[in-house]
């Protein structure tokens, strides 16, 4: 069966243009240990270790990592979860 992917892609783009949502960002700090941050990403987002480490290293090397792009409530939920582990996480509107 052939899936009409281009149509779905266009709809997704239209939806994103109407509501770009919020970026969930984790910011670097010198206190949270690298393996701890990896563990938190695995727990909160259900990522495998490799993906969690990629984002952890992005935080460490680039100062921040966008870990999700969601509507208000879901982004708020992720910020609550991440802050419950004392990571510096915020939700921001895309530039």
């Amino acid at each position, binding site marked *: 069966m052939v899936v009409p992917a281009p149509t779905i892609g266009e709809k997704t783009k239209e939806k994103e243009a109407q509501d770009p949502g919020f970026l969930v960002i984790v910011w670097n700090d*010198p206190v949270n240990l*690298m393996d*701890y941050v990896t563990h938190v990403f695995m727990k909160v987002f259900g990522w495998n270790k490799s993906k969690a480490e990629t984002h952890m290293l992005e935080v460490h090397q680039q100062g921040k990592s966008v870990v999700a792009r969601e509507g208000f409530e879901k982004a708020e939920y992720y910020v609550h979860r991440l802050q419950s582990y004392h990571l510096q996480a915020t939700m921001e509107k895309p530039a």
Partner: protein
Amino acid sequence: MKLLEREGERLVFRLSTREKQLLQRLLSFYPLQSESHAKLSKTADARFDDANELLVEARKEHQSELSGWLARRLSEGAAWVTAGTGWRLVLDGADAERLLQVLNEIRVGAWLKLGSPENLDAVEPDDTAVALAPLHGLMMLTGQFEMVLVHAMMGDSGGRSSDEA
């Protein structure tokens, strides 16, 4: 503190009596942080006002829940089993997550009380007031327990044990 058994998410650690006393002493500092600084966004926007209040409330509730858990499971000894001259600490998956959050709250809280130094290795001994030394100790020791716990939960034996992200 050493991992003895790992069965699914259930973890059993062995601690000497001295390690148990140290861990319980560290945990007695919980909570170390004020929750009033919690912010949902760096952007000043009226849409976040209600959500910020909700976040502060949620963190207070979470802190209260963790304090209760700590008293029931670790301070009063429900998770501890004597084993020869030492102790066994038995944690299920949820207990391990809670212990990790408590330890990190103390670690981050100590860092905040130290003035949130950017470079933890650059502190000269002369610059460290005697009064602040316990906070450095709290950070270091909670970090050590955190690493043992994280590696046990991940199912591996090591990693970047002392680096910060």
